[in-house]
């Protein structure tokens, strides 16, 4: 497969659960394992937001988690992209009338890509990550072009 210009370097992803039902989380892991094999694109889950280019966020953001989500977002180095996986992170989904939610996720942190579905299929998640990647490479390019060193 020929890679297009967006595939400049490997993409590292941090997965953050903000109170999801796990449905989306296991689909993310399924996306990494041999059937769907995200790793062939050089995409890897990492254990710390400080290493990540992309945040994969699932779940409707419970009140207790809202602050952690902001902190994880702040810890992720720029340029970064945020992908919301799953309907409950986009709109609250089945949890829309809970008393304990601070979400949806875009009320807490800025979001770049939405992957709807409850849960979305691994193919959709992979597509979401690739969309974020394209956005990220564009961001990187603008950063480079505008850097004072130039």
């Amino acid at each position: 497969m020929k890679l297009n210009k967006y595939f400049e370097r490997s993409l590292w992803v941090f997965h953050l659960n903000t109170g999801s039902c796990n449905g989306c989380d296991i689909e993310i892991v399924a996306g990494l394992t041999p059937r769907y094999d995200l790793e062939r694109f050089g995409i890897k889950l990492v254990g710390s937001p400080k290493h990540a280019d992309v945040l994969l966020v699932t779940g409707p953001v419970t009140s207790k988690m809202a602050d952690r989500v902001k902190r994880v977002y702040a810890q992720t180095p720029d340029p970064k992209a945020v992908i919301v996986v799953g309907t409950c992170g986009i709109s609250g989904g089945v949890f829309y009338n809970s008393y304990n939610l601070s979400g949806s996720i875009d009320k807490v942190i800025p979001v770049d890509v939405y992957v709807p579905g409850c849960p979305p299929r691994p193919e959709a998640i992979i597509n979401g990550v690739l969309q974020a990647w394209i956005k990220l490479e564009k961001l990187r390019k603008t950063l480079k072009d505008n850097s004072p060193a130039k």
Partner: protein
Amino acid sequence: MSNKTYSIPIGPVHPSLKEPMTFHFEIYGERIEKVHLAPGDNHRGIEFMGRQRNPIQIIYLAERICGICSASHPFAFCQAVENAMGIEVPEKAQYIRAIIAELERIHSHILWAGVAAHELGFDSVLFLSWRAREEVLDLLEYLTGNRINYGIFMIGGVRRDITSEQITRIKKTLDYYKEIYGKLEDIFLNDPTIALRTKKVGILSKEEAIQLSAVGPTARASGLNKDVRQDQPYAAYADLEVQAITPEVYSGKVNGDVYDRIVVRLLEIVQSIQIIEQCLANLPEGEIVAEEKLVKLLNLIKKAQGEGIGRHEAPRGEVIHYVKLNQSELPEVWKARAPTYNNLMPWIPMLIGQQIADIPIVLASIDPCIACMDRVTILDRKSGQKNILTKDDLHKLSVEKTRRMAQ
């Protein structure tokens, strides 16, 4: 607390339980002295939301209590409502329910085996087992329309039939699992490194299991002969004579360690295959749902009054749902108790006396799936020096220990 112990908070991001949770470990050198659990980060107020929806809508909410057990909660919930309303479920639906529940057990146990292998540093085994798991997800998708959150349960029955041509497809998948089971068993039970890391680790004695009311494979691995499918058969299980599996079957004795928990789960995969085969062989003919028209069903619910209980042996243990209907569209009370709730306390005796590097595998051994243990801070109380351990570091410690022991 002596001034030689360190305090390690872990979490709160530790999902895959209903609640991601915070742990505090008190460590003496490498040894765990005390464990504190603080759940609640993932609290979504599901029961509260349930009280504002009608029982048919709740089925879909119950599915999303946990995406991994997305057949178990609706199974127990539907039984509770049927119990309260006195609905008789058609026999064929009983069998289809059992088939879906057992397929879910296969997927959940293989998922767990992969996660356990990952915690020990065997990522190749994680990939191998998750590849194997895809087959049962394909089958579930074929039967129900969804890989996860199947949406097949309905009060009074199921929403989709299993036709005779589908049976051929089910049998094909079962044959696949029979074929690869030997491989899985060989990797997990005969590998010397896995044995080194899991034998005599995270022991839960039979007495402790009784006192802390552990459930599911966690209890059975400690020698407790309990399984709802055996003790209070429901749905199709009443015809099948399911036997609870304890590690004696395999090794002749019970140690109650992590290894025994692997044994029980692996044997349960075989048991599930057998149950599905029996169900298919005896699959009755007839209706699949007691009341097809939802409006009519809802009207019946509105008139119903009474309390009901539904129990089901989920992959992680017994799940109980309680419903109280009081002549209204909305249930007056809905209470769900998931198995991990019972299995939290047994963590404490399992973890005390273990090493830091054993934390991931012991935590994983009750099957809560530690996906995102956020980070660990080691605080040296004397010097006030702070070290941040990420989940990665903790994982690395565990992997290093495997390497050390393998040499």
